[in-house]
């Protein structure tokens, strides 16, 4: 992935955390575009409208959680309606190891990071993918 014009989507209900993610990404990639969603429903709509390369996804959110987001993209991929494969980083407060492992196996999920987010972990991942 090239760092010019890279598009990020942040799906997270907590506005403070969204701002922290956003500031962090903007500092790392000044030319990036960032889209924000407060739940998975907004996230899905933004996904299809803006085609982000990379998604930071929270799992537990009101109205619609991250699980549904993954279910929709997975079905889109299975039925070949969806052509591209974004990179998804799950940022979650879930502590159950089995549950975390299941999430890690889902379509397009490249990494699962626990909350509160350690920015150096995310930075290391992003720098690996984006040049």
């Amino acid at each position, binding site marked *: 992935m090239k760092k010019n014009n890279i598009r990020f989507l942040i799906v997270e209900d907590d506005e403070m955390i969204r701002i922290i993610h956003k500031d962090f990404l903007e500092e790392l990639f000044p030319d990036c575009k960032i889209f924000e969603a407060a*739940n998975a*429903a*907004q996230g*899905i*709509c*933004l*996904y*299809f*409208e803006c085609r982000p390369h990379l998604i930071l996804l929270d799992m537990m959110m009101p*109205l*619609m959680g991250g699980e*549904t987001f993954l*279910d*929709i993209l*997975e*079905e*889109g991929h299975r*039925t070949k*309606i*969806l052509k591209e494969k974004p990179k998804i980083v799950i940022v979650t407060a879930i502590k159950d190891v089995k549950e975390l492992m299941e999430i890690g196996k889902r379509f397009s999920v490249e990494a699962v990071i626990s909350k509160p987010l350690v920015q150096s972990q995310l930075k290391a991942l992003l720098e690996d993918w984006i040049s």
Partner: protein
Amino acid sequence: MNAHSTKSILVIEDEPVTRTLYVNYISKLVPDFHLYEADNVLEGACLCFEKHPDLILLDIIMPDYGGELLLDLMEEGISKDILSFSPKIIVISSIESAEELMTLTKKIAVASVIPKPLPFDTLEELIKIHLQMNELIN
């Protein structure tokens, strides 16, 4: 509306026989329309966002995720001004409680609610009204 002048309709229904019935009916009614089919609402949502159909026939009661999922997606997408398109959704529902039907009718994206089994005459009229096909009404 569609980028091309051809209109399109998406049918989301889990029951294959019923779905075929709807599709056959619609393709006879409006032969030059694009028709898309989905057997679950997850696939339906992907087709909806990818193909921007003008009209969607949506079954409400389906296994796993029900039709409400698409209504929730559209409601957020439309009310938050995220979506660049806004299909008319005709909800097909065998729900019998008046309260549930009213809740469905109030959803932003829902253009009409019709009962199941489907009255085809009503469907024909609704398709023409929602797609403003005046020439076909007369």
